[in-house]
């Protein structure tokens, strides 16, 4: 099933010529209206008229999260405030939040792309969409909400938190589609189990999970515990919010990125060179229809690769491989690259352990230390110390086997790892810089 037959199945040449036209317009517009871009383009010695092919994109400078902070709050907006109808901001756990503004047309585009994403995930009119993404400054809640309404589904604006009530509503209202972060979905499963409610008796058929990286093994666990198809969705507020890309339910293999609105590139995060097609690196996105705050070559920090092979679903838009982590989440501990997703896969592989964890890196006497906090739950808790010690020793050994790094495992109380907007903060790096 497709939402927008024409645009979702455009032939390659048509996508590329549309992209070039829209790129040229965007570049001209930001050059004319955003001093930041004008200065950056001049410093790089490039004028809008020199963008003659899609390959010329790589001559443009990158935009970083730092640039958004330095131009806080409205410095990167390309239209006057009287044309902005909505403002969102990132949670800003490190420094000032990043602020984004949407024109009325941007809101419509966003709803269109979210509606496409819902349909790709197997949702349609008549579905009851239980939206447990946070409503507020965070883009998740309202982004999914407008898409669900555009689709014509019945949307329940649950927002996050109040887990017991979520379960009750899901059961009583007959929710068929769940939208939330993957880690929150597992909390819902735990809470339901405590309430004696079996997910198999609910009507849920699909869950659309995003806003934090998750692994294939976590997908299996979610699908099993919640008895639904778990679909990975990609988005970030700097580019749009949820709905930049999504897996199709037909293949569940890679996330289609809506190429009539975004141009993806993959670069080497260290050298910043564009990598040959198919190689893994950092995802860079240029928005080509956004009006409020267009982004030129925004470095997402997400690590993935592009898949251009045709998909069985019929969509012609390229796919992003499942995010394997974030370049700024990648830790180098005693010279070894460590992605939180690797730790997660170890935890999911151990019976009873939930992937609720946090990595704390520190330095003691010039040596890096890695501590892995893992939340205890009723299945892993025992009244016997030795059983708990066997558990932490097993986690430690499996991490050592996978990464070659010895860590200290600390078992902590459930729900004690800090979360914002339902997103868990996975890494705390205390090393002096």
């Amino acid at each position, binding site marked *: 099933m497709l939402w927008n037959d024409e645009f979702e199945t455009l032939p390659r040449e048509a996508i590329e010529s549309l992209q070039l036209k829209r790129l040229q317009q965007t570049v001209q517009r930001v050059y004319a209206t955003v001093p930041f871009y004008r200065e950056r383009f001049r410093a790089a010695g490039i004028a809008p008229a020199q963008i003659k092919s899609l390959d010329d994109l790589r001559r443009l400078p990158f935009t970083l999260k730092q640039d958004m902070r330095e131009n806080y709050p409205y410095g990167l907006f390309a239209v006057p405030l009287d044309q902005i109808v909505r403002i969102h901001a990132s949670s800003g756990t490190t420094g000032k939040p990043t602020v984004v503004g949407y024109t009325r047309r941007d809101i419509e585009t966003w709803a269109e792309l979210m509606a496409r994403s819902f349909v790709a995930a197997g949702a349609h009119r008549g579905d009851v969409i239980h939206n447990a993404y946070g409503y507020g400054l965070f883009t998740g809640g309202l982004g999914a909400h407008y898409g669900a309404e555009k689709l014509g589904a019945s949307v329940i604006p649950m927002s996050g938190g109040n887990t017991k009530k979520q379960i009750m509503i899901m059961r009583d209202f007959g929710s068929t589609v769940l939208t939330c972060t993957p880690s929150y979905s597992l909390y819902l499963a735990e809470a339901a189990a405590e309430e004696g409610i079996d997910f198999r008796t609910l009507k849920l058929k699909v869950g659309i999970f995003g806003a934090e990286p998750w692994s294939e093994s976590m997908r299996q666990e979610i699908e099993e515990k919640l008895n639904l198809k778990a679909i990975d969705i990609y988005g970030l507020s700097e580019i749009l919010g949820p709905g930049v890309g999504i897996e199709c339910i037909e293949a569940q293999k890679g996330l289609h990125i809506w190429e009539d609105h975004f141009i993806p590139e993959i670069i080497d995060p260290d050298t910043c060179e564009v990598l040959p097609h198919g190689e893994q690196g950092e995802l860079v996105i240029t928005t080509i229809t956004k009006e409020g705050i267009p982004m030129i070559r925004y470095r997402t920090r997400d690590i993935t690769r592009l898949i251009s092979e045709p998909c069985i679903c019929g969509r012609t838009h390229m796919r992003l491989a499942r995010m394997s982590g974030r370049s700024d989440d990648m830790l180098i501990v005693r010279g070894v690259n460590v992605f939180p997703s690797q730790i997660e896969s170890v935890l999911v592989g151990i019976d009873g352990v939930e992937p609720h964890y946090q990595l704390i890196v520190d330095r003691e006497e010039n040596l890096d230390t890695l501590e892995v906090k893992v939340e205890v739950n*009723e299945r892993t808790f025992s009244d016997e110390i030795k059983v708990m010690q066997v558990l932490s020793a097993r986690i430690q050994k499996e991490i050592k086997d996978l990464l070659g790094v010895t860590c200290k495992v600390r078992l902590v*109380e459930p729900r004690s790892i800090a979360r914002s907007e339902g997103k868990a903060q996975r890494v705390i790096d205390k090393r002096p810089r």
Partner: protein
Amino acid sequence: MKVEQISIFIENKSGRLAEVTHVLGVAGVNIRALSLADTSDFGILRLIVDKTDLAKSVLKEKGFTVNKTEVVAVEVPDRPAGLSGILHVLDKAKVNVEYMYAFVERCGENAVIIFRFDDTEGAIKVLTDRGITVLSGERVYGM
């Protein structure tokens, strides 16, 4: 002949133990016996209380991880070698003691010790066969 014990996971940070006792106090639960096993990172608090199910549910509501396990309350003569005799019986029968702790109240002339065995049923049989008194749950909760 088994006694229900609740165990609670407690992180080593200030105030957690006080929080547990406060929650139980407010709910009107009386602690009959307790033992705290600790490691450098966390502790496991084991309690025998007068209202086990109520204690478990109020603690869970407050976000604690709580388990219920079965332990055995044994009458031990309150004199030198009283405990030794009982452990000797268990040892001969190859019953392993995971951990044990003493009850505050006496039962008549005798002390009461709570045992956690690897094989609870087997242990009860060994003890009762040798004429050692194993106390029922009702008896213990009301002591």
